[in-house]
């Protein structure tokens, strides 16, 4: 096996230690910012949806402000968002580079993204169910927990899946901003040193990673659909 790989992709085998490190950095970036995004993105989406006109926590000013914040960060291309937030990152985590330094920009990109995904997942919960819950004397928060979030599990899972896939995409871009990871590895060797084997290997790894995320997400969403 090692012999075979050495024959097909010698450029990669020589740098396998760096590849492993880059892979590990990507996994770290995706899992850390993914986990934090879930913690903030789902409540953000719930607020975006429920404070809307006619929502169970209707509040126009809050909805307006949240919507604008969301649209602002979503409209900035990630490469510019990363540059913009270097200062903030230094302030919060003490550095603007490496895996640590890129977490803050990644969060600002994924939380609004996931928020919108969750918002549209909640919109698919039939209004009749909310009415039934209200008629049974459920409070707005009870409706959020016991009706919206429970009924929207398949939709939210699909939203989380899409978010993680774009997070993987962002981490590759993050490579150009000194964050390390597979993107950085591909740019440093594949592009700058003109080693197409490196580029193709990284692409292959990312395709496998994305497919795995899609598969797991799809499986959970299917399991949760009754």
């Amino acid at each position: 096996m090692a012999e075979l790989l050495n024959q097909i992709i010698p450029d990669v085998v020589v740098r396998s230690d760096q590849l492993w490190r880059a892979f590990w950095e990507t996994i770290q970036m995706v899992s850390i910012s993914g986990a934090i995004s879930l913690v903030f993105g789902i409540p953000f989406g719930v607020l975006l949806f429920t404070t809307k006109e006619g929502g169970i926590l209707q509040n126009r000013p809050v909805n307006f402000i949240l919507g604008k914040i969301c649209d602002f960060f979503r409209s900035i291309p990630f490469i510019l968002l990363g540059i913009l937030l270097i200062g903030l990152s230094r302030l919060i985590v003490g550095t603007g580079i490496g895996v640590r330094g890129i977490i803050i920009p990644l969060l600002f990109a994924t939380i609004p993204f996931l928020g919108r995904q969750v918002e549209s997942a909640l919109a698919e919960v039939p209004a009749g169910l909310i009415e039934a819950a209200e008629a049974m004397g459920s409070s707005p928060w009870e409706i959020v927990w016991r009706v919206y979030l429970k009924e929207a599990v398949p939709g939210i899972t699909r939203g989380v899946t899409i978010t993680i896939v774009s997070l993987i995409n962002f981490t590759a871009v993050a490579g150009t901003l000194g964050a390390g990871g597979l993107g950085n590895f591909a740019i440093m060797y594949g592009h700058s040193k003109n080693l197409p084997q490196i580029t193709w290997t990284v692409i292959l790894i990312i395709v496998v990673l994305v497919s795995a995320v899609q598969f797991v997400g799809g499986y959970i969403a299917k399991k949760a659909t009754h």
Partner: protein
Amino acid sequence: MIQLEHVSKQFEAGKQTVEAVKDVSLHIEKGTIAGIIGFSGAGKSTLARCINLLERPTEGKVTVGGAELTALSERQLREKRKKIGMIFQHFNLFASRTVYGNVAYPLKGRSKGEIDQKVRSLLELVGLSDKAEAYPSQLSGGQKQRVAIARALASNPEVLLSDEATSALDPETTRSILRLLKEVNRTLGVTIVIITHEMGVIKEICDQVYVMEGGRVVESGDVFQVFASPRAAVTRRFVDSTSNFSRIQELLDDPAHPIRLNPGDYLLRLNYLERSTSEALISNISRRFELDVNILLGSIELIDGNPLGGLVVVAGGGHDKITAAVAYLSKRNVLVEVISHG
């Protein structure tokens, strides 16, 4: 049990204001089954939603079980709503929960044993003990509505609101759901309010009926009385819709002219009230007044155990004889209406 006083509800639709319910006052006694009937857009669903304040009336007072709901805070209102069950046209079951989970939904906070006992007994009441672990998507419409009824009864309500609960069901299933509601009413003493556009539903189980049109209650009373002598035109249309009398107008309008009236012929509708059904009235009038009476349509219904029926006939014999016959029939508690004459 349920008292509405001068309840009105307006909706703002863009720049327009739609008045869905206009100054409705009604009183529904404890333990009765009351029907609210109207065509779509008559305001009946909005009125029902005003009873548990899913829609807050723009004006008026709503009192249920002695508590003035319109005066309560949101928190107090939520407590009161637990005593007002509601079922819907599209069932509104939680797709992510099993039948058991749906019925257990309102019971949160109680002990596991208590919940289990309650859910099992309710599922037995609605005849779905074997479906506890099924998901709503695996059930038929009638079964879904049974689950919804069990769920609505879980918090031991005093009132059950049924908003077009049988409108999405076939006639056979409708009848079985209505039977179940009647049983719930009898055995648990739950006051039931039924919103429907089908007079058949009213006829089947209601004690009282309220007829709505254009946001107002245009006619009300006990079901037999309203069926026997409907006053408002809309009530007449509903009453006719349960028999084949509504067809007479179709027959008259039909271009093929299946009904031909000769000069001096009258097309009459005779409504039998109370016990007049047992007399041989047609033979009587044709003998006494020398009329030729041809029966086109006939129908007898049992409302609340009382027979109620009528005939549509073509009577020939001239104006004077027919007028005399009509007077004779009126004295015998038969309501006569001239539909058309030749």
